[in-house]
């Protein structure tokens, strides 16, 4: 009987012990691989995402006076609504949320309010996302807190805005910003009452990504140039705040990963160590028999270490498969920012193939030593 044959026969005999050990290692490897694969997506060296994270864009008409823009919050100029669809089909940029906006200051019921028309979100290629912008049905409006307070209007009531009748779908809670004097409506309603058919004065794109090479500053310049090729009469404003937030989030995820993996590995090692210990106890007599027929310590240890290595190898292969599948299946939802970059990491497979058997062997080292030092004379005396 070779050591391999003995390991194999014993595994078949004591399936539960083997299965439980294998399960623990498979779970650990799977989690590691899925975390690593998703995490690795953001670290890809040659093709980089902007700061590995998303950013927000505001696209406004080129002629906009920026001093005026920052004062009022919107542009006095307009651009065609079709720009938003051009941007949507632009290949160099992916976004999570995209909408077109037309805003104007109007006097209504003796109040200076901002009338904001918002288009429904333009769907992005790929996954369904929870909308970030209001999605208002034509004929309905949301009114800001201050507007409601001054006019006494309530939810469900009807009101006339610049000659058109609207039903109030929602009164927004107090925001403490100029949103309190906004009236939100469907883009096309606002275009109609303002006589600005097919015109908008801003496109908002949230959580954008673009694939780029080289330095970030160069890449932004390049992205701007490319966008201007598509939208020649527009201007691109880049908001970095979200980038920083995203970066923090990723940093936290990495810290979490750095904590959970060693923890998981230790638990897994203890688990298979204990199972191996149980296995050694169960096999006392067998070991005694093997000693009696002349097995040396090396061969006895090899029975346990070999089995551990086998578990490690199988778990590496199975765990890599499961982990990669998990990363590809659920990764894009969890790690939206780097979703496009999640690809199987073959490098990690080779790593697992070495590390998993090594850790398994390490875990059963003590039980194997116990098996080796066990007194065969005592074991064989047991009835």
């Amino acid at each position, binding site marked *: *009987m070779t050591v391999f044959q003995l390991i194999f026969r014993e595994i078949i*005999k004591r399936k539960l012990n083997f299965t439980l050990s294998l399960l623990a290692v498979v779970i650990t490897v799977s989690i590691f691989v899925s975390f690593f694969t998703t995490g690795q997506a953001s670290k890809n060296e040659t093709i980089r995402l902007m700061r590995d994270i998303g950013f927000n864009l505001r696209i406004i008409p080129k002629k906009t006076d920026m001093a005026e823009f920052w004062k009022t919050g919107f542009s006095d100029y307009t651009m065609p609504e079709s720009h938003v669809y051009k941007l949507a089909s632009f290949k160099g940029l992916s976004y999570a949320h995209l909408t077109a906006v037309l805003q104007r200051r109007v006097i209504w019921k003796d109040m200076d309010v901002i009338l904001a028309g918002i288009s429904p979100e333009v769907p992005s290629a790929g996954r369904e996302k929870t909308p970030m912008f209001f999605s208002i049905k034509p004929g309905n409006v949301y009114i800001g807190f201050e507007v409601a307070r001054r006019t006494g209007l309530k939810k469900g009531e009807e009101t006339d805005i610049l000659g058109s009748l609207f039903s109030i779908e929602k009164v927004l809670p107090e925001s403490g910003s100029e949103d309190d004097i906004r009236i939100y409506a469907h883009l096309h309603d606002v275009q109609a009452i303002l006589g600005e058919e097919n015109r908008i004065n801003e496109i908002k794109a949230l959580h954008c990504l673009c694939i780029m090479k080289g330095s970030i500053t160069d890449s932004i310049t390049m992205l701007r140039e490319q966008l201007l090729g598509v939208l020649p009469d527009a201007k691109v404003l880049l908001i970095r705040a979200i980038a920083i937030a995203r970066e923090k989030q990723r940093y936290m995820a990495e810290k979490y990963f750095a904590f959970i993996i060693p923890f998981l590995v230790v638990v897994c090692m203890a688990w298979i160590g204990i199972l191996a210990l149980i296995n050694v106890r169960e096999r006392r007599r067998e070991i005694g*028999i093997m000693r*009696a027929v002349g097995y*040396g*310590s090396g061969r006895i240890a090899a029975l346990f270490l070999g089995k551990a290595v086998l578990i490690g190898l199988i778990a590496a292969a199975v765990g890599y498969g499961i982990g990669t599948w998990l990363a590809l299946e659920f990764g894009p939802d969890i790690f939206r920012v780097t979703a496009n970059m999640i690809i199987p990491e073959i490098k990690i497979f080779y790593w697992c193939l070495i590390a998993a058997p090594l850790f398994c062997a390490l875990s059963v080292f003590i039980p194997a030593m116990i098996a080796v030092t066990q007194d065969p*004379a005592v074991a064989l005396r047991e009835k």
Partner: protein
Amino acid sequence: MIRLEKVSKIYRTRRGDVRALDKVSLDIKEGEFLAVRGPSGSGKTTLLFSIGGMLCPTEGNVIVSNRNLYAISKSQRAKFRAVNIGFIFQMFQLVPYLNTVENVLLAARVGTKCFGPEDAKSLLNRLKLSDRMYHRPSELSAGERQRTAMARAMLKRPGIILADEPTGNLDPENVEKILRHLVEYNQNGGTVILVSHRKEVDNYASHVIHLKDGHIQEYE
């Protein structure tokens, strides 16, 4: 061939020391059939394990084939055992998940010469186990199990067979079979040491010793 020089074995337990062998000196020649008799607890198993290199005596030397067994390393002792000694136990001691042939071949690859399935099968044929080759120990009768264990001990034709009450769990018919095989092995030149508390083994043995409280009481 086997020489014990004032061998003592003291088991140290929490409830005090147990002197299982007390300065036992013994000479066993090559080709001898020695029966070791004595009441339970007299040290028979301890004696056998000491000779087999499985149990280090507290005092004294065990010299087998000119080797001082407990002066060499543990791994050398294991190798020595693999080549020179075959054990047979009262409880058969078969590996439960191996079939008959595999149990016989358990140690086939340990040691200098390699033995293959053909060697095991021809031996099993001689021991009348040809139709039980692929059965598990749990599917065998007591007599068949003991003959399997015997085949395992004899496969590599070791110079010495150590049998510890091999007939203890068998019916008279199987006792007879086992003893006949041991005699046959002995007649082919093997040294056999047989531990038993049955009087009738004296008829098969060339020498008999009686053990009591770790002493050799009688030597015939």
